[in-house]
Structures are given as C-alpha cells and as structure tokens.
C-alpha cells in the first residue's frame, strides 16, 4: 500500500514537472530578397542566445525566394495553413503580403527591411496595430544619405542615373525627397525604370549607342538594383564606362560598387529577434513599437581608387566599414 502511494506521488510529481516543459515554437521565415538573406542568420543567432534553440524548442521553416509576388503568396499561405506561431518576413512587398495572408487569423507578423512610408503596413510607429510589428527600413533617409555621399565622393557630378523597379511602391517617396535636394545641388536625376534585367540591359545599351549623358549611377531602396543579375549589368556598364556607382554595396563576379549606405542586415536580424521574443512571450505584436534599423555605411576604397575617386577623410571617418 505504502509503495503504491509512493509511486503515485512520484508519478504526480513528474507529470507536473513535465507539464511545465517549455513550449515549442514554429516560426515561418519568408526571406523574400536574396540580397538580404543574411537577415535570417542574424535573427536565428539572437533567437538562440535568448533560448530559442533550433531543433530543441524551435522549428524554423525558412523559405527563400527573390522578388516574386506569386511565390510570396504561396509560401505565406502554407505558413498560415501550418499555423505557425510567428511569421518573420522581409522585404516590404513580402511584408504587405504577409499582413494580408494572416488576416482573420491570430498569427503575428514580424517584418524587417520594410519601408513604412506610402504603404499600408502599419498604423503608426509607436503602436503599429493589427498583429504586426517589425524593424523599419529607413528608405527615404537612406536615399538622401546616398545622394549626399555620392556628392561628397564626386562633387563634380551633374547627372545621376537612378535605375529602379518599375512601379515599386516606395520609389516615389524617395524621389520626392531627392528631387529638391538634387535641385539645390544643381544635379539632375535621370530615372530609369525597368521591369527586369533584360529591359535594364537594353536601356543601358541605348545609352551607349546614343549618348551617355550621366556621370554617376545611384541605387534607391528598391529590389532591382540589388538583384545579382541586374547588379552585374549595371556594374559591367559602370566599369566599362568608368562611371562611379553605388548606394547599395554589393560584389558580384568581381564587380563591386564604390559605396553602400544601407542597414546592417545581420544586426537588423538580431534586432528583429528581440521583437520576436516579446511576441512569442505573448505581447500582442500590434502594441510593440516599430524600431528602426541603423544605417551602415561601407566604402570600397580600392574600387573608389579604381574609379579615380579620392575619398575625403571625413567620409572615411564616418564609414562603418572600409573595404580595401
């Protein structure tokens, strides 16, 4: 009888203890732009530091794709069907799709590398509302910063070519800031919208055949420039015609841009993880203020020299990373 009692008590103890075992989390990650896929690594690293161990109590369903709205929709639909605990998504378009996909569910969305200007992503920074929050991409501010740095690197430039994805939603807000600043600096902006790399290539060829009337190429915060194929086309053109280019720092096929002012993608992933932790602990996503990524300024000193550009010391002092 006594042995039976002891067994019952011991069993009860272990049952209670096992019921207190931590919950398992299922996080769907939609990496919607290869250029920033490092975001996932930063996110997972910080999550692991906070106790979300992949394979133990956390499952990550990571789906990578490039700028593809159909793919975004399908992946997000799967996440919703699988009832993930959280969707971590980037960039802007994928974030917008995620917001639509979870409507009517209680799945929270954590965005990153997403612009909030001119898009219906959040209500406001302090209280984003709905079931969404994230790390904003300071697109307009970065666009202006890129212009300013371009002007410091090459003060004599007068015409800057701005290639971008046609009809990309946040381009207008960046251009609307740039135009007055460029005008004040006596610089003309030449827009080059394109639907894809092929159109971009054809457009640049036309310039070659007719007249290259620009003396710099600058990237806005948009996906076309940072797609590897498109970047290769622009870089080849720039190298061939010795036209300085930059804005978003990339290296593809030994071609590198001169500078990039962007966000630290890995660190942004870590920032997002802090918000993810709050969400997974039960804080409604819509009540968590949106935070901003910090800018990250890179200069490729060697490439600058290749283009005959003397980088001012002040600019070097401001750089977060000098690539030699």
């Amino acid at each position, binding site marked *: 009888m006594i042995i039976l009692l002891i067994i019952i008590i011991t069993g009860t103890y272990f049952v209670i203890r096992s019921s207190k075992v931590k919950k398992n989390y299922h996080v769907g990650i939609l990496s919607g732009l290869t250029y920033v896929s490092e975001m996932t690594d930063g996110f997972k690293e910080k999550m692991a530091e906070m106790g979300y161990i992949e394979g133990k109590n956390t499952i990550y369903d990571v789906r990578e794709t490039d700028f593809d709205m159909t793919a975004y929709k399908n992946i997000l639909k799967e996440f919703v069907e699988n009832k993930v605990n959280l969707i971590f998504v980037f960039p802007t378009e994928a974030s917008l799709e995620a917001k639509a996909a979870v409507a009517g569910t209680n799945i929270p969305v954590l965005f990153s590398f997403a612009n909030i200007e001119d898009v219906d992503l959040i209500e406001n920074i302090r209280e984003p509302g709905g079931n969404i929050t994230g790390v904003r991409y300071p697109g307009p501010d970065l666009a*202006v910063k890129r212009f300013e740095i371009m002007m410091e690197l090459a003060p004599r430039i007068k015409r800057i070519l701005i290639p971008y994805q046609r009809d990309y939603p946040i381009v207008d807000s960046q251009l609307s800031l740039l135009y007055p600043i460029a005008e004040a600096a006596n610089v003309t902006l030449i827009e080059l919208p394109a639907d894809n790399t092929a159109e971009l290539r054809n457009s640049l060829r036309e310039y070659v055949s007719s007249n290259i009337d620009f003396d710099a190429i600058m990237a806005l915060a948009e996906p076309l420039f940072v797609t590897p194929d498109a970047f290769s086309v622009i870089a080849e053109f720039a190298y061939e015609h010795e036209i300085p280019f930059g804005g978003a720092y990339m290296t593809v096929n030994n071609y590198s841009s001169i500078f990039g002012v962007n966000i630290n993608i890995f660190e942004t992933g870590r920032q997002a993880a802090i918000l993810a932790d*709050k969400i997974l602990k039960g804080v409604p996503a819509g009540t968590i203020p949106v*935070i901003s990524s910090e800018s990250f300024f890179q200069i490729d000193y060697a490439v600058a020299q290749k283009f005959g550009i003397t980088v001012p010391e002040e600019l070097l002092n401001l750089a977060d990373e000098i690539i030699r």
Partner: protein
Amino acid sequence: MGTELYFNLESQEKFVVDQQNLITQNAAQEIKNFIETKSNLLETTVKIGNLTTVKKEEYKLTLTKLIGFESSFRQIVLLDMQGEELATVSRLSSQSTPVINEFKKMIGNDLFTKINQGEEYISQAYIDTVTSEPMIIMATPVKNALGDLKGALVAELNLKFIWDLMNEIKIGETGLVYIVDRQGDLIAFKDISRVLKNENLAYLDEVNEFVNENISAYTGTSEILRGINGDLVVTNHVNFGYPDWAIIIELPVFEAYNNAIRVIKLSGLITILGIILVIIASVYLSKRITEPIIKLKNAANEISRGRLDTRISVASQNEIGELAENFNQMAAQLHSYTQHLENIVAERTSELKKEKENVEQKVQERTRELKEEQAKFLASIYSLSLGFVLFDKRHRILLKNNAANDILRLPAGDLTQGMIKEVLKNKLDVEKKAEECMKRKKQSN
C-alpha cells in the same frame, strides 16, 4: 517547524535583498559606465582635437572622427560661447533637418548654465519622434590651455543600448527593472510602449522615494510595495548619481519568497503525507494485531458452543502467530480430552445400562417371587377357616378373607373398622385388641 520557517523566511528575505542589490548595482554601474565613457570621449576629443586652436575647417574632420568612432553618437555640434554653430556632423541625412533643428532647440539655456560653470551637461531623456528611440544630449565645455571657456561640444547620444540592457537583465522569472529620471519619468523599461507614452511613475512609492530624495544615496533596503504593474513586489532602487536617474528593481512577492513558500508547502505536504502514512500504518498494524485476536475470540466462542473442531489460521511468525498456534493446540487437546471423556461416559453409561437391566431383571424376578409369595399368602389366608381381617394404622381394612365375612356376616363392598366394630360391638373390642397386639409386637422387637 515554526522556528525553521521563521529562519527560512529571514534568510530568504536577506537573500532576495542581497540579490536585488547586486543586480541593481551591476546594472546601474553598467549604465553609468556607458554614460561616463561617452562623456570622457567628448572630453578627450576636446583636449586632443585642440578645438580651440585648430582651423575651423578641421572642426568637421575632428567631429567626423568622433562620430565615426562612437556609433551611439547620432549628431555632434560644436558651439561657441554665444551658442553659434561652428561645425555639425550627423548620421542623419539632410532630409532629417527637422530632427537636427529639434536637437538644436533642445540645447537650450540649461546647457550653457552648466557649461558656464565649467561643468558637464546631461539633458533629460527624450524619445526621437521618427525612430522612437531614447536620446539624451551631453555637452562638455571647451576650454583653452588657460582654462578659459571657449564653447561647448554637444552630442546627441542614442540610449538604445539601455533599452537593450533592460531587456537582458533577468530578475528571477517575473521580476522587472526600469529606469526613471529625477522627475519620475520612465526612461527605460522592457515594455517600450509605456516609455513612449512618457509615463510618469512618481505615484509609485519606491519611485517617489527617489524623486523626493535629497541625497544621492543607495538605500540598500528592500520593501514590499506596489510595483509598476500594480502587483505587490519586493522593490529597491539605486541612484545613479550621474546622470540623475535611478534604476528600480522589482520582484513579485510570491516569487521573492518562493523558496520559503515552497518549504511551507513541502512541509505541509510532508506533514499531511506523514499523517496519512501514520493512519494507514496504524490501521494496518492494528488490523494485523486485532484481526488475529478477533479470530481467537470467535474461535473461543465457537469452542464454548461446543464446536471443539474449531481452528484458527494466522499466518504470522510473531507472538500472535504463536498464540494462535497454542490456541489451536489447546483446542485440539480439549477436543481430544472431551472425546476421551465422552468415550468413558459412553462406556460407563453402557455399563450402567447393563447393570440397570440386571437390576430390573432381578427386581422383576423378585417382584414375581413376591407376587407369588403374596399370592400364596393370600391363598392361605383366603383358605383359612378362621376369619382374618387386616387393618392399618388408620383403621382401614387392608385384607379380609371369606371366613371373616361369613363369621361376621359382613356386607359386601368396602368395609371399615367401624362397620366391623359395629358387628362385634358387644363381643369384641376390636380396637382395644388391635392396640394390645401392636404393643406386644413392639415389645417383642
């Protein structure tokens, strides 16, 4: 157990207080170090950068070096004694002009009041309207080699680091930590939305204590008060001194005294368990003792009712078992004796029966003989020619023969001595003669 609980509570309280003190002091020190490091950086820049002697063109270079070196500086401005801008460096683009202007607006009279006294300046914390991040303005006086005041080096410092620190500090499982300024405004807390609402916590007793303190002193005492979430907490605070903030630490009472509560629960559980076990053991043991005794009693009853074949089975090796064994032996012996007695009685009864039969037979024979003698006697009496009448003491006629009837001419039927006296009344006093016979008989015996 009461004493043990009391000392347990005492030591638990001390442990909580010590732990809180350690955590708050560490956190406060870390934040103070952060602020002081930035302040020292500004001072060093002023000294090494020779800001009072270099050309104006080099101001910007120095400032860009500084901002490039320290990522938490968002904007740096060099001002002359009139507050005029000599150089500005910013991480922000020119489109953030409103932010820069706001920053410059915030560099108000307070700053120069301090600077004119040759002291460093730290502003109140504020939230950036675009990034929603906490910022402060720090300023250090710019002096020449003679110690004359020449201006101020002012920096806007991003305090996001403190928010990250608040997130990382773990106070038990559910404890909280937050920072308030001297007015009681919340500067850093893991629930950023409350910071963004510019919440004032002076209504909380612990915060109020800091707000009304006249000295920058570390109190070192924890109290149970209402916390930031309205629950009862063990709370304490540490003044930074510089800047004029305090870090408040809270631990819910139930968690703070979790160990003691657990001990109480465990003690209670063990006590209840012990009582249950004692009851079970008592019942079990008593059953082990009383059951055999009841069996013995019942068996004794059965035996007393004559069922001498009654036996009890007690499968225990102790004294009860021995008693049962002895009882069984006794019962067996009793049974045996009884059997033996019964046999003897049966035998004797049989013998007596035989004797009785013999006696009865003899009695029957003797009776027959007596009856034969009686018959003979009666026959001889009846055959007598003499008259014979027999009387008892009560003068009742027991026997008479025919001769008596004839001689006395007695009537038929029952006769009495009176009737015979009547017949013999003048002839024989029968009664008198009878008495004489009886006297003579007695004398002869």
